[in-house]
């Protein structure tokens, strides 16, 4: 199975969601997870629409991140359509980060791309606002797909 975690862009939130999913942890130590997130960001600097492979989870499912811009439905339908055309044997499931996106995270990403530390501080506040909800939803998602 291929798990596609997608948001408007591949930035702090997508990296954070990936780590949260992989670790499946109740870690509230933001300082530690920050470093891991920041170390991932250079790998995520790809053009929109690029599926970025990020290894596998504990069940052997492939993990991918996708920055899909604002045209979520068109991009997902395209991806599923291509999968059908090429008879891909890999089932794809999607986790949408849209409910967790907020302007602080967008602003944080903007400054992080300019290599400004301010970006990290703003993104951390943005993450704090959605952390619990995102963690709970990822746990439910993980359980549902690995039933």
């Amino acid at each position, binding site marked *: 199975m*291929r798990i596609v975690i997608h948001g408007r862009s591949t930035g702090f939130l997508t990296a954070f969601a990936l780590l949260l999913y992989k670790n499946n942890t109740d870690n509230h130590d933001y300082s530690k997870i920050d470093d891991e997130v920041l170390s991932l960001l250079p790998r995520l600097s*790809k*053009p*929109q*629409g*690029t*599926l*970025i*492979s990020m290894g596998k989870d504990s069940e052997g499912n*492939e993990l*991918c991140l*996708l920055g*899909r*811009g*604002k*045209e979520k*439905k*068109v*991009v*997902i*339908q*395209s*991806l*599923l*359509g*291509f*999968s059908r*055309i*090429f008879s*891909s044997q*890999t089932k794809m499931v999607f986790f949408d980060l849209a409910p967790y996106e907020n302007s602080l995270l967008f602003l944080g990403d903007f400054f992080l791309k300019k290599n400004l530390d301010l970006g990290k501080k703003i993104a951390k506040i943005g993450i704090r606002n959605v952390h619990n909800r995102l963690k709970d939803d990822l746990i439910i998602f993980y359980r549902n797909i690995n039933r």
Partner: protein
Amino acid sequence: MIVIYQCFGGAHSSVLAAAIHTHMLPVDRIPAGEEIINLPFYDKTPDRKIGVPLFFGTDEFQNKIFIQGLGKAKKIVPNVLESFLQLEGISTEKVYLKNTLQYVTLSVRLGGFLSRGLGMVFPGRLITVYGLKKSYPRFVEMVKRVKKEIAIA
């Protein structure tokens, strides 16, 4: 090979190009309006299908021809395809993407908006046909180039 003709809604210019490619429309004359309107998918592809590659037919070399509406994601979808093929270990040379929007005139855009956007199907459809007939020779040349390129590939 897979050939995908892409436009905004997957309802007009991509359909015309795919029809020329699969010989549903002639290359030696400009077709009548009815020939265009009666094409499968022509001015019929619903908005909810935008993004979905739709199978149109096969050409004389058994290449599979698809149409696809990209909406506002025309710059993003090619990246989706390329990265998807990379993950699957499939060569990108097996797919040929052609965006037909550059051949679309203002009347086609206007007609498409009237028909698909506002639901004014009758006038909208006629205006799209008028626009496509005017630029039909350019579409024929474009399809010929596509066929030449995929034959070399």
